[in-house]
């Protein structure tokens, strides 16, 4: 077992962050990133509603 270097860190632009949010909202919840954001900010979605909500909500700051 060799000693490894640290993992790659990638700085995303807000556009790349929005794309990632959209991809994961569709993958995990079947809605767009924009719809997720609107429903989240309106308080219609709870982080504990289902397992994947928190997974997607954590991406929101990347989207600016």
């Amino acid at each position, binding site marked *: 077992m060799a000693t*490894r270097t640290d993992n790659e860190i*990638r700085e995303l632009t807000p556009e790349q962050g929005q794309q990632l949010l959209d*991809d994961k909202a569709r993958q995990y919840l079947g809605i767009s990133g924009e719809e997720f954001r609107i429903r989240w900010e309106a308080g219609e979605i709870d982080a504990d509603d289902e397992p994947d909500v928190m*997974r997607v909500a954590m991406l929101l700051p*990347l989207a600016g």
Partner: protein
Amino acid sequence: MPARTPAEAVQAYRASISRVLSCLTTAHVDVGGGYAPSAAPHALIMAGNDAVALRGASRLTLAVSEHYTITEDSDAGWQVHRAAYFYAIGLHDTGELLAYHWHPRGKSPVVDPHLHVRANIQLGERWLGKVHLPTGAIELEDIVSLAVNELAVEPLREDWELLLHENRA
């Protein structure tokens, strides 16, 4: 040594997380928001918040993400503080087993750190997976240590224990 600028503080934080993750996975980390202090948190996300496979007979997966803020303290210089976290340990092909959450913002009335155990067990009218088991604050180092010491995950680097010890200091 205290960070003299927000950028120094953020770079040290990001490097620290990356180093801890390297104990278990080669997955990349995405960050955004730059180095500017703001009321809104910044995010650090491993592998798009997908579950990544860990090495070992237990066939576990891990997902990791954190939110953080950047503040200046008159004595300690610029500092990064965690503002939320999501650490999920899952079983390959089955899904989440354990989900450590801290989400002080948002609609949920539960704002303290907690654990969800994704077991299909009904307790009265509730399912165990929905129950918020209080934990106190969990560190990423705790998750790595749990995985290796108790859950049969094989570390990817020989110096993982030393690295965790140094990171906790």
